[in-house]
C-alpha cells in the first residue's frame, strides 16, 4: 500500500522515466560508438550490456543529484516534526521509498534491455548469459548512486546539494582516472574496452557488485539515520567496501578473453575462411571476397592459405588475419562492400595493422606512412591503386604522395617488387614499430 503510494508520488517514477528517456535517447539519438565496433549495442549481447554501462559515465552523477533531490523531500515538506512523533522506526519508514526507487530504476533498465535485446535476438548468432551479471551490476550501481544521493541530501538538506553532488560525481570520475585509482570504482565501462571478444572478468563483476551494494547500504543508512552515531555507522559499508575493492580492483584485469566468442567458425571449401563465433552471421558475406583475395595473395612466396577474422591474438603462420570491424586505429564500422573486404585482406600484403598500443602508433606521420605502405602493397596484388577502407578521407596531399610512391614502386623490376612486398609482409607480421614499412617498399 505504502510502496504503491511511493511508486506513484516519490521521485521514483521521475527517476525511472528519466533514466529510460536518457538512455534510449542517447542510444538512438546519437551516432555514438555504441553503433560501431565489434559489439554494437543492438547486435551483440555483450555490447548491449556494456554500452548501457558505458552510458553510466553521464548517468550516475545525474542519479546522485536526483537522489539528493529526493533526500530533501522531508525537509522540503517540513514533515520531520510530524514523523518524529510516530512509532515506526526510521529504517522501516525509508524501506518502501528505497523499494520504489529500486523498482523505478529496474523498470527503466529492463525496458532498455528489452528494446536492445529484441534487436540483438534478431541478429546475434552468438548467445550467452555472461552479459547478464554485467548489466545487473550496472543496475545495482545506479541504485547505489540514487540511495547515496538521497542519504547525502538528507544529511545536508540544502538546495545546493543536488547540483553539487552531480558536478562532484563528474569530478570524482575524472580524478579517479587521473590519480590512478581503479576506474572500476565507478560503474562506467570505457569505450575502447568494449569488444565482443572479451568479457568483464568474473572477479571484477563480483567485487563491483559488492562495492555498489556497500554504497547502496551507506546511502540507505544515511537516509534512515537520525542520530550522529547512526550516521557514522552508516559510513561503515563504504569504508569496508573501499578497503576490499581497491586492492582487488587494482590487481585485476578488467576484461578477459571470451573464449566462446573468439572460437573460429570456418568455411573450409577451397581456401579456408573463418570468422569468430561472435560474428558467425558474417561468414557467408565474408567468405567470397576473402577467398578472391586469398587467390591474389598466392603471388607471394610462401603464400598464406587461409583467412581468419582477427580477434584478440596475432595471426598464426599461413593465416591472414583480418579485422572486420575497423583496423584498431581508424575505423570501427563493419566492412560491408565486397571490394572493401578484398582490400582489407590484401592490405599490407595480408597483414593486420601493427598496433602495439603505444603513443607512437597513433602519431599522424607514423600512421600515414604505414597506411601508404599498406595501400601500395595491396595495389600490387590488384594492379590498381585504391584507398583502403577507413583511409578514404585522408587528405589529398597524402593522396598525391601515395601516387608518387606507387609510381616509384612500379618502376622497380618485377622480381624486386615481389621481393620487397614479401619483405614488407614479414616485417609487418613481426610488428616492430621501429621498422618503417614504406622504406622497405621504395628506399633505394
Amino acid at each position, binding site marked *: *500500500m505504502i510502496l504503491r*503510494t511511493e511508486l506513484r*508520488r*516519490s521521485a521514483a517514477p521521475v527517476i525511472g522515466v528519466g533514466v529510460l528517456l536518457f538512455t534510449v535517447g542517447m542510444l538512438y539519438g546519437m551516432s555514438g560508438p555504441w553503433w560501431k565496433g565489434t559489439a554494437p549495442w543492438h547486435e551483440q549481447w555483450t555490447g548491449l550490456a556494456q554500452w548501457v554501462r558505458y552510458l553510466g559515465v553521464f548517468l550516475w552523477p545525474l542519479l546522485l543529484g536526483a537522489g539528493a533531490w529526493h533526500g530533501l523531500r522531508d525537509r522540503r*515538506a517540513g*514533515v520531520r516534526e*510530524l*514523523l518524529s*512523533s510516530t*512509532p515506526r522506526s526510521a529504517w522501516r519508514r525509508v524501506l518502501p521509498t528505497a523499494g520504489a526507487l529500486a523498482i523505478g530504476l529496474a523498470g527503466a533498465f529492463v525496458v532498455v534491455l528489452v528494446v536492445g535485446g529484441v534487436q540483438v535476438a534478431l541478429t546475434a548468432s552468438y548467445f550467452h548469459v555472461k552479459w547478464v551479471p554485467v548489466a545487473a551490476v550496472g543496475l545495482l550501481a545506479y541504485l547505489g548512486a540514487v540511495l547515496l544521493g538521497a542519504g547525502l541530501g538528507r544529511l545536508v538538506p540544502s538546495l545546493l546539494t543536488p547540483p553539487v553532488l552531480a558536478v562532484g560525481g563528474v569530478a570524482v570520475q575524472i580524478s579517479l582516472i587521473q590519480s590512478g585509482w581503479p576506474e572500476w570504482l565507478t560503474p562506467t565501462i570505457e569505450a575502447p574496452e568494449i569488444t565482443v571478444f572479451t568479457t568483464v572478468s568474473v572477479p571484477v563483476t563480483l567485487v563491483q557488485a559488492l562495492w555498489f551494494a556497500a554504497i547502496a547500504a551507506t546511502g540507505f543508512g544515511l537516509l534512515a539515520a537520525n542520530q550522529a552515531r547512526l550516521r557514522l555507522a552508516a559510513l561503515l559499508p563504504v569504508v569496508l567496501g573501499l578497503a576490499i575493492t581497491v586492492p582487488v580492483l587494482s590487481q585485476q584485469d578488467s576484461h578477459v578473453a571470451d573464449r566462446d566468442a573468439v572460437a573460429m567458425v570456418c568455411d573450409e571449401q577451397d581456401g579456408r575462411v573463418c570468422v569468430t563465433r561472435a560474428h558467425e552471421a558474417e561468414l557467408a558475406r565474408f567468405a567470397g571476397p576473402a577467398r578472391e583475395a586469398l587467390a591474389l595473395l598466392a603471388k607471394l612466396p610462401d603464400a598464406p592459405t587461409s583467412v581468419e577474422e582477427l580477434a584478440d591474438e596475432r595471426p598464426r603462420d599461413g593465416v591472414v588475419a583480418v579485422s572486420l570491424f575497423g583496423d584498431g586505429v581508424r575505423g570501427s564500422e563493419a566492412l560491408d562492400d565486397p571490394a572493401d573486404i578484398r582490400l582489407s585482406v590484401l592490405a599490407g600484403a595480408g597483414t593486420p595493422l601493427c598496433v602495439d598500443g603505444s603513443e607512437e602508433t597513433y602519431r599522424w606521420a607514423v600512421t600515414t606512412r604505414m597506411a601508404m605502405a599498406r595501400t601500395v602493397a595491396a595495389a600490387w596484388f590488384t594492379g590498381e591503386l585504391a584507398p583502403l577502407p577507413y583511409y578514404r578521407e585522408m587528405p589529398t596531399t597524402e593522396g598525391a604522395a601515395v601516387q608518387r610512391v606507387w609510381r616509384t614502386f612500379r618502376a622497380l623490376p618485377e622480381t624486386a617488387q615481389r621481393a620487397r612486398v614479401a619483405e614488407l609482409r614479414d616485417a609487418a607480421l613481426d610488428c616492430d614499430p621501429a621498422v618503417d614499412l614504406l622504406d622497405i617498399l621504395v628506399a633505394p
Partner: protein
Amino acid sequence: MARVVDAAEVAPRTYPWEIAATDLRVRAGRRMAVDGVDLSLATGVHGLLGPNGAGKTTLIRALATVLRPASGELDLLGGADVREVRRRLGYLPQEFGFYRRFTVREFVEYMAWLKEMPKVDIPGAVQRAIERAGLTDRADSKLKTLSGGMVRRAGIAQAIVNDPAILLLDEPTAGLDPAQRMQFRQLLRDLTEDTCVVVSTHLVEDVAAACSDVILLDNGRVVFQGAATELAAAGTAADAGDSPMERGYSALLARKGAAG
C-alpha cells in the same frame, strides 16, 4: 463499519490520567520554555491558552514525544513506553508539513501506517477520519491543490486516524474560516468521550466554545487551571477584553505579572 476490536482497546484503563506531568521542564533551544509545569489531564478537551512565547508549543511538543524533557516527570497513558504512546497519539503540529504530491487519502494512509495500525484496519480508519474532518469530496485530491483551510483539515484527519487516546492540536483553527471553525468545534465535542484532547490556541473564543477546561500558561508555568466558567469568573469589568473569557484571561495574566 464493523471492525475487529482487540483486547487492549476494551481493557479497563489502569491509570487515572492520560497525561501526568510533575515539575516538568523542557528546553526550546537554550531557553527553558516550559519551566516547572504540573499537570494532570484525563479525557476531555483541554484548552491550552497563553500569550505568544508562553511555552504552549514547547509543552505540546514534549507531550508529542518529539522533545525530551530536561527534567521532571512526564507520564503518558500511565507510563507506557514511547512506542506504545506514539501508537495512541494524534498530533497536529503548529506548522503542519505534508508531502505535496500525495493525495489526502494517501497521506492519511501513510500516517496510519507510521502509527503502526493493523493493515486491515487502515482503509476503513482512513475513510472515517477523512469524513470526520469534512474532506470526503477532496479525499483523492493532491494536497498541493488544497486551500489552507482544507490542508488544516487534512492535518486533523491524519491526527485522528488512529482514534488516539491523546490528541494534541497546536493552533488547529489557524487558517479556518468561521464555518470551518464551528465544524471543528463540533468535531472536538464528538471526540471527548474517550480521548484526552489538548488544544493549544491563542483564540480565547475557541476555548470558550469547545473546551471543558482551560490551562493558562505564561512564561513556561501554569498560572491557571480550571473550568472555562472559572476563567470567565476571574475577570471583572475593569479588565481588558470583549467577552467574559477574554476579561478573565487578561485578569489572570495581569495578576500573575503583578505577583511576579
